[in-house]
């Protein structure tokens, strides 16, 4: 899908805020119900993009906090929604939401910490939940959660780092597990992980930066790995990774901005994965966050490691290192 003459070329922030504010209010919407299995992340995406646009107050804080409380299980882990099972992915999303709302103590923090710690394996990796799926995404979820709670010291850091580094590939990138192919989403998780754990010097920034800047296609958009289509969410995964390793200037910013703006839907508000497609909150957050990283002054500065507003992290006192 390519941008046409009629693609948007200005940022329609008010429309996006209206879109997110209304999303989920129709609880009988088909797509909404079918995505219940990731509801906690969906709420995090919506709240974060609203906060970045200065519109957080339009969301229902009390309802969301009660919802999160109802999702913490006895083991300490947090699920995507009521009746669903706990998982690291949704534990992180919940902690991020509560950080935005400065209400971390509505849940049992010690139990969350125990839950995360309990998921670390012998080789330093992290399982997503008790069923044992291993993925560097979960290494990121674990350290990001603990960092937000100020409890990084409970895990075996050396082993955790060792595992992530064992996932580094010939092209400087990272995959899900040792031997897995490099992918921008995993690269974001691993560079974010290495930033939080103070190990960014282990990255070959020039090599990885080259691989990442080669994600930019003639349309200006970014793909997630070679020979794939561009997608607005890679404006986040790729761009944030480049920012973390100090190579964001290797992207053609103007062309990327045009691509992201073309992914807006003027009618409904929100962003789609590429111009002309249907919008959703996931792509809306990453489109706006990407624009923030590119320096758009109408949007609050976003932290490239946590994908949260910088002012929230300053309040918490978290300033993970970036390479320059």
């Amino acid at each position, binding site marked *: *899908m390519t941008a046409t003459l009629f693609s948007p070329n200005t940022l329609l922030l008010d429309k996006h805020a209206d879109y997110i504010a209304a999303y989920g209010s129709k609880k009988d919407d*088909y797509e909404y119900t079918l*995505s219940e299995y990731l509801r906690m992340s969906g709420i995090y995406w919506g709240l974060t993009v609203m906060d970045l646009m200065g519109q957080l107050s339009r969301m229902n804080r009390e309802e969301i906090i009660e919802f999160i409380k109802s999702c913490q299980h006895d083991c300490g882990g947090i699920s995507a929604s009521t009746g669903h099972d706990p998982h690291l992915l949704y534990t992180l999303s919940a902690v991020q939401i509560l950080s935005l709302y400065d209400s971390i103590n509505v849940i049992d923090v010690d139990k969350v910490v125990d839950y995360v710690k309990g998921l670390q394996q012998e080789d330093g990796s992290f399982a997503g939940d008790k*069923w044992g*799926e291993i993925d560097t995404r979960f290494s990121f979820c674990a350290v990001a959660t603990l960092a937000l709670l100020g409890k990084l010291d409970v895990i075996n850091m050396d082993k955790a780092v060792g595992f992530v580094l064992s996932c580094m590939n010939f*092209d400087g990138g990272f995959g899900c597990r040792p*031997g897995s192919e490099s992918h921008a989403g995993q690269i974001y998780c691993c560079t974010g992980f290495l930033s939080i754990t103070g190990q960014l010097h282990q990255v070959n920034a020039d090599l990885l930066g080259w691989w990442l*800047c080669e994600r*930019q296609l003639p349309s200006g958009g970014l793909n997630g790995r070679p020979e794939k289509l561009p997608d607005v969410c890679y404006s986040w995964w790729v761009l944030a990774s480049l920012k973390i390793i100090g190579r964001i200037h290797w992207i053609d910013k103007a062309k990327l901005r045009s691509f992201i703006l073309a992914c807006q839907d003027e009618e409904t508000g929100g962003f789609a994965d590429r111009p002309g497609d249907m919008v959703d909150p996931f792509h809306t957050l990453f489109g706006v966050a990407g624009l923030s990283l590119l320096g758009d002054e109408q949007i609050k500065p976003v932290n490239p490691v946590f994908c949260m507003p910088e002012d929230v992290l300053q309040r918490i006192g978290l300033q993970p290192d970036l390479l320059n």
Partner: protein
Amino acid sequence: MPLGWHGRVKIKSTAQQEEEKRKEKEKKLKAFVSARDAVLKKRSAGEHDEEALQLTRQLLSSNPDFATLWNYRREVLLHLETLREKDEVQKLYESELHFIEACLKVNPKSYGCWHHRTWVNTRLPQPDWTRELGLCDRCLSLDERNFHCWDYRRVVVKASGVSVEQELQFTDRLIGSNFSNYSSWHYRSTLLPQLHPQPAPDSFHSHRVCEEQLLKEYELSHNAFFTDPNDQSAWFYYRWLLGREEMISCVYVSREGERVSVAFSKPVHSEGLMLVLDGQPQQVEWRSTHPRLRHSPVWLCDLPPGSISDMSNEHNLTIHWTEKHTHRDCALYTGCAESWCRDSATNLELFRSELSVEKSSVLQAELQSCNQLLELEPQNKWCLLTIILLMRALDPLGHEKETLAHFQTLKEVDPMRSTYYSDLCSKFLIENTILKMEYAEVRVFSLSNKNLTTLCHLDQLLFVTHINLSSNQLLRLPPHFAMLQCLEVLEADDNAIENLEGLYHLPKLEEVSLRNNRILFSKKSKCFIRNCFSGVKSQCLVWPCFKDSVFFIN
């Protein structure tokens, strides 16, 4: 993120079509909610029976990302295991594999599906790895880039003991037949070090793969990009083949202060650094050049007073870096106040792979072929960049002019990446200047008017006393600038420098010229500057806002 949220084209439709769609969705939603509620109710009641399997089957077929349902299914299966004989358990899980395969047909990229299959194989009394490998073959023939399938294949290969050779041959087949084969090249890069490892850990070698095999890999990737010069995967792989390893760059010793400085080509931790003086291991405390650097490319230590202060004594120093089984020797001669160790051989190792005669002739042939390809495809950026890398591998100084010309062309044919090419070109110019310095045995580093956009290899400039970076496009003097422990004079006029953080604590710095930059003046920056130069004997600072006047601190 939901897989369903990708690639959904927005289609305009009439009011009637919209109404039909709405009714359809309402129906589907009702069915889904009803099934979901039934399942979750059963689970809450602790029921682990066939009905649970049926209900979850119905839902998971079209909602494989509903992870909690896979969890429930596993609980049911585990419970049923306790009630059945071994051969029934085998059947139970084989049936499960059929179900998962049906789900994979609908959605071959569901994390939940693939993980569940992996789990089932841990419960099967007799897993059939041949069948599993066959599934992978079929799945990859439909989509050679499905990383879920590749990851699952790695699990199967490990569990069933399929040989590395066999898997290498598999990649040969795929690379030969497919256009989009990055996943295969990647797999190859992980298999080679297992099958053809580098004999012994050796600082001279850039790869964990032995040279004989590397040379074969040049041919393989060369054939790929000659068949299709736009097959970027092969070009990425090729670049990896030309890579190099990190090591100790330089050791510098000074009788004054009895200080030893060690520079590395990348930031390291001081653990594992050992200093031996005249055969005696020394107890020293290493410190980095900038307090912010916990992992530093340069480490300093002070020897016990009197160790090397007497000019009439000759000394031999060795720095051991135990992590990489490598070391550097440095001799401090009678009558010499200082010494450093770097020789041209060392430099060439740093900036390119150590070249055997065989490898050198192979690379020469590669360069010729690429030049021929460039004549046919003058706009091919992969070819241009690869030619530059080959020239650097063979003779960086001899090819300097051509390299600069190719970078110019690169920026024209691939303008989106021009800042990358500018930085890379700066890096190569710096490398060349360092190489030239060594041949001339001077301590002056001069790179003015070269369109430099970035600084690097500062670890190589440990003993430099004069630096001229004027008339470039530098934006800052980065923290690593603090490595330049011997620097006395810095000229950096006519750049775009905003940030002077790198000037922190350069012990020998006497003269700084920074006319025509973009340094922002505030009380804070003046204080910072004052603190930078505190402890330095006398300073003469030429400050932009004071034009040609000289500004003294202290």
